[in-house]
């Protein structure tokens, strides 16, 4: 009885195995094929590499579209974190530039209004108009001649740190110009140090109608001494002249010898003394 039961169970097991074999044959075959691919690197890479390359190509083409939003969010977050620092660094420079520009433009505007109001019906204006009519010279040219009462007396290029003279030109022989350059630098250093205004430089020294304009550059500064009243637009002209001089004559000079000092001096004379 016991033997009969065992035999029946065994035959059931065999039948089940046969059934499994029939049902799973295709799956088992696929599995063994996959195993063969995975265990053989050469075959595996042959199969997978084209897929990776295709994906990489897709990634290259679509990176901006797919990831721009993520990158934008990251940049936005970084900018917001460092916004204060950036403003802290930029604002003094920007503020100084804007303040200077606005103040300067207001000064020019004010002068233009004043001049227009003053000169429209004055005796001088009528005289100028009459003179222009009879002489045939444009009224604007006559006006320029009237305004042209400022004289550049001296011009210097001075080494910013040491105060040593790098070039000089003057209308008349004055005090030792090396000493003037040294004292100007000392005054500049004293004022800038005493008032501790970061990113501010001494721009003008004035006594009576005598003015010294100072324009700072990286390693040197240009000082222009002039006599006479000076409007904002005339000041602007002188500053532009100084900028042009620095750009054309000093940009390439990085070593200052006796020869370069002579060269700068003759150019200074040409630009600032002969012109007037």
């Amino acid at each position: 009885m016991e033997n009969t039961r065992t035999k029946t169970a065994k035959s059931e097991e065999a039948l089940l195995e046969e059934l499994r074999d029939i049902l799973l044959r295709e799956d088992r075959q696929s599995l063994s094929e996959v195993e063969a691919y995975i265990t053989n690197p050469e075959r595996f890479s042959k199969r997978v590499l084209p897929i990776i390359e295709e994906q990489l190509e897709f990634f290259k083409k679509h990176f901006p579209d797919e990831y721009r939003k993520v990158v934008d969010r990251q940049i936005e977050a970084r900018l917001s974190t460092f916004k204060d620092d950036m403003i802290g660094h930029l604002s003094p420079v920007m503020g100084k530039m804007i303040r200077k520009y606005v103040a300067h433009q207001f000064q020019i505007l004010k002068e233009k209004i004043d001049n227009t109001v003053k000169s429209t019906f004055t005796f001088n204006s009528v005289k100028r108009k009459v003179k222009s009519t009879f002489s045939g010279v444009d009224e604007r040219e006559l006006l320029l001649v009237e305004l042209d009462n400022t004289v550049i007396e001296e011009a210097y290029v001075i080494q910013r740190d040491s105060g040593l003279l790098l070039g000089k030109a003057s209308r008349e022989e004055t005090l030792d110009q090396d000493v003037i350059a040294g004292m100007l630098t000392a005054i500049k250093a004293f004022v800038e140090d005493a008032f501790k205004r970061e990113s501010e430089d001494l721009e003008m020294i004035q006594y009576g109608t005598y003015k010294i304009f100072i324009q700072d550059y990286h390693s040197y500064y240009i000082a222009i001494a002039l006599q006479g009243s000076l409007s904002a637009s005339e000041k602007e002209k002188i500053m532009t002249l100084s900028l042009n001089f620095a750009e054309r004559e000093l940009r390439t000079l990085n070593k200052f010898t006796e020869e370069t000092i002579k060269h700068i001096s003759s150019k200074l004379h040409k630009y600032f003394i002969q012109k007037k």
Partner: protein
Amino acid sequence: MTSKKVILSGSFGVGKTSLFNKFIHNKFSDKYLTTIGVKVNKKVINVDGTELPLLIWDIAGEVSQNKVPNSYFLGASSVIYVFDLTRPQTYKNLQTDLDYLKDLLPGGVIKVVGNKKDLMTPEAIEEVKASLPLPVDIVTSAKTGENVEELFQQLGRDLISV
């Protein structure tokens, strides 16, 4: 030769301006007027046949060198550090001051000068020199002019040889 910037520095009342005036104008005054800010002047010296223009900055005295605005030292070739032989408080910071100046002007010529020689005996001067942590380059008297010219000659030679 191009000009050299020389700074006269040291504590107040040690005689920097007197040395400056003696050297530049050959004048001496007993009246003490404290220097405000800086005074600049120039003298061309002849060092063994070479003309050397010196731009001398006589700066206001400070108890300690680190109180002098750094901008005055910029671009200087040399510093003459002056102390008063008769006042120990003017040379008590000698070592610290000299270290500070050397840091500020690497490679620059620094001269240590004991002034007011006329008020001391030779023995007392030797005593002061012996008590100092560093050698004194020269002792001078702005009043009598003793060694003033020699100081600038020494300086000129050093500046040319640098």
